[in-house]
């Protein structure tokens, strides 16, 4: 186990684990950032919708309220001290009403005298039964909803009048029809890019308008809708119902059908009405969503890039690590097969290489050689000089033989060479002469005038001959012995006579 752990937790694996750890941290951090981005954008949607709707709701509610006040003031001015207070006849009055109606763009403008006759620009009508509020004593401006035959509803702003007469008959009040649909339509046309819809309601939630501002089926009663909606904030339907009844202001988010909505409601100043403006979450989300989606896309892209970079980096790391390892392995292998002193194959490596060559049928010649009277060199000049001799011989071999030739030191001053492709004595002899030339060129100052001589035994290996390395070695060794009997550089070939 300890060995396993030791092997496992080497520098490479520790580095890899650290790398993985850092990458994981970075990726999870990115994921967390994405999650935060989503949450932030959701919060932003909520906050923006609340802020936006509040602004919109307050503004529109105020606009409605102001329109009513303006209308009230206009009517007071029209029939006030600075306006007309006397009409000689009903024709005079009706003509005046026609002019005013056009100037002020009223849908309906009428006055009622104390005989309960109602005058418009084109008609005189006994109108009390139609507008039941006319039976009331009206002392200040007020708004009434007239429910007319045919389920038609008219919103009427009534302003009492004083001192206005038609000939001698006092005029009791004037009224105009208020077109909430028109007002809402004008308000809605003003600004918004987002998809909002707003409406005016009685306190029981019943809509006061007829125009469909939702682009689809318009609800008759907002409280009915909310009663069956799923609130997504901490509000409850009962609270909203109370708010409507008491004219309070509020903000709610809820799911109705398949849509998520935000609604802001408030009372309309000077009336018993409630104004509510709603926006669908998809509308805000579609704006914020683009930003958020862009952020999320970038985040995701970052994660993907990070993962890709991780993968690529780690792959590169593994590849490089593997390559280093291979090189290390190769180096170690080479070291294990190389003679440290001379740099040529050692016995094991050289033998292995030669055996491999024989296995693949690489015909050639095997040389076995050593330095003549090497012991005397060591004895007379020292082992250092002896080493120099060995090194020089090795260099001479490397220099004389080809790169494909296997040069090895068997030990001491004994060397072997396998030269594949050299299959005849003449070719082999030429190589040996070259080698001898290199030997003759060796100059070791410590040796003085003494020359180095070598003796070689050679044996050919030709495919088909059922001899192995050991036999080859034996044959070359026999001929080495023969070469040793001759003074100076000598090579003897086995079986080539």
């Amino acid at each position, binding site marked *: 186990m300890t060995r396993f752990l030791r092997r496992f937790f080497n520098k490479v694996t520790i580095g890899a684990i650290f790398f993985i750890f850092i990458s994981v941290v970075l990726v999870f951090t990115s994921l967390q950032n994405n*999650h935060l981005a989503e949450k932030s954008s959701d919060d932003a949607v909520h906050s923006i919708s609340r802020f936006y709707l509040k602004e919109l709701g307050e503004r529109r509610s105020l606009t409605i309220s102001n329109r009513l006040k303006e209308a009230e003031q206009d009517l007071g001015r029209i029939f006030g001290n600075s306006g007309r207070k006397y009409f000689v006849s009903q024709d005079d009055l009706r003509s005046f009403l026609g002019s005013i109606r056009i100037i002020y763009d009223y849908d309906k403008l009428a006055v009622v005298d104390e005989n309960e006759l109602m005058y418009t620009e084109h008609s005189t*009508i006994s109108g009390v039964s139609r507008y039941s509020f006319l039976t009331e004593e009206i002392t200040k401006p007020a708004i009434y909803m007239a429910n*007319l035959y*045919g389920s038609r509803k008219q919103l009427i702003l009534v302003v009492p009048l004083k001192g206005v007469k038609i000939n001698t008959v006092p005029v009791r009040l004037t009224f105009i029809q208020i077109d909430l649909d028109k007002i809402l339509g004008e308000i809605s046309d003003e600004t918004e890019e987002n998809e909002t819809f707003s409406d005016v309601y009685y306190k029981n939630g019943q809509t006061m308008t007829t125009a469909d501002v*939702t*682009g689809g089926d318009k609800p008759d009663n907002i409280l009915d809708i909310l009663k069956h909606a799923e609130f997504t904030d901490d509000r409850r339907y009962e609270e909203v119902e109370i708010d409507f009844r008491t004219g309070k202001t509020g903000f709610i988010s809820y799911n109705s059908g398949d849509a998520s909505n935000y609604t802001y409601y408030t009372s309309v100043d000077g009336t018993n009405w409630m104004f509510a403006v709603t926006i669908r*979450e998809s509308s805000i989300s579609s704006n914020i969503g683009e930003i958020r989606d862009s952020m999320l896309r970038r985040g995701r892209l970052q994660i993907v890039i990070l993962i890709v970079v991780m993968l690529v980096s780690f792959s590169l790391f593994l590849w490089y690590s593997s390559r280093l390892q291979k090189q290390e392995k190769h180096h170690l292998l080479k070291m294990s097969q190389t003679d440290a002193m001379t740099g040529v194959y050692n016995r094991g490596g050289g033998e292995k290489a030669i055996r491999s060559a024989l296995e693949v049928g690489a015909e050639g010649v095997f040389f076995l050689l050593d330095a003549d009277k090497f012991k005397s060199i060591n004895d007379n000049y020292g082992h250092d000089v002896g080493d120099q001799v060995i090194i020089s011989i090795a260099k001479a071999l490397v220099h004389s033989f080809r790169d494909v030739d296997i040069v090895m030191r068997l030990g001491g001053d004994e060397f072997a060479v396998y030269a594949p492709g050299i299959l005849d004595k003449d070719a082999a002899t030429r190589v040996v002469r070259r080698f001898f030339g290199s030997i003759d060129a060796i100059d070791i100052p410590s040796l003085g005038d003494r020359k180095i001589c070598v003796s070689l035994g050679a044996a050919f290996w030709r495919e088909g001959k059922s001899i192995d390395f050991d036999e080859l070695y034996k044959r070359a060794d026999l001929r080495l012995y023969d070469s040793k009997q001759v003074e100076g550089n000598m090579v003897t070939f086995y079986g080539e006579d």
Partner: protein
Amino acid sequence: MKAKKIILMMFMCMTALMMHACDAETDAEKSPDVQETAETGADVSEEQDGENHVVESAVSFEHTLDDYVPKKKEYNFYFTYKIVHPWWDAVAMGLEDAADQYAERGVTINYEYLAPQAVDVEDQRKRLLDAGNRGFDVIGVDVADSAQITPVINLLINKGQKVITFSSSDTDPKDGCKRIAYVGNTHNEQDGAALAEALCERIGYAGKVGIIVGDHGAPCHEERLRGAKSVLDKYPDISIVGIDYDRESADRAEKIATRFIDANPDIVGFICCNMVNPVGVAHAVATKKLEDQVTIVGMDHDERALRLLKDGDIYCLGVQDCCSIGFDTIQTAIKVADGLKPGEGYEELTDEKTTLIYQKDAAAMLYKLYGDQE
């Protein structure tokens, strides 16, 4: 090498996990919901599919002017009727609708539409004479009393004033009225008969019945009474225990009904000939707790009556198409003002329908006329 393989496996596993985490959909990433339409309340009339036709055809609010091109750009009309009353407010809706449509065509319609607070034949007479001096193109009158108003109409006609009758009451032909045309209910007698038939069937053609009328001399009321009596007289087991006039007062109708009930505790039915009768009678019956015993039939579309119909306290109501009366009155008046004679683009009698409605129709009618969604 083995260690490297293990590390690589770990790395691949973690990568796979991370990519799975990145790939998982979140709520925020889900595609936004397609926008939806808000819920609406159910249309009441759709719930009564079989009865829609009855209600839809009984009263019409969709009118379009015919192709006749008025000769002038401006007309002045005078209309007077029996009494300031929601029934005539409904007629006025039709008048206004026609006037608005003519305005869109560039023809201005000026009109006076006036009545007293209580039925007053003398008042009507004075109004007509006064209007006759003011140069109106056409005068229209809902006759309060045929015998008394016919001479006034004829006087005006003789002076060159164009006069038509409209809405609930025409003059009686036997009075020799020269009015040019009539737009309104030409079948009041048949309406009375239809109500009586409905009542008789309901009570099994036997029992005591009271009849409450509106105004003495009002042609429409008298005709309905005539029609009701003609039906009741057919059934020997039905007896009429009383006929009285409420003069367009629900309180008075209630008092009359109470008196009939006190005198005839086994009374089984009431025929009401105007708009407010049924309301007063139903109240009297309820007070006496005789709802299960007494059947009430009546006229018109009073909101209270419709609710009583819905609750089963009234058996049926004859609803007139008031809006169409008003609309057609203006159309006819224009042609009359232009000098056209009956038969030249309009009829002397333009009949407007009456439809009997029952409990099953009440909710739809309430919704149609008053926007009621209960």
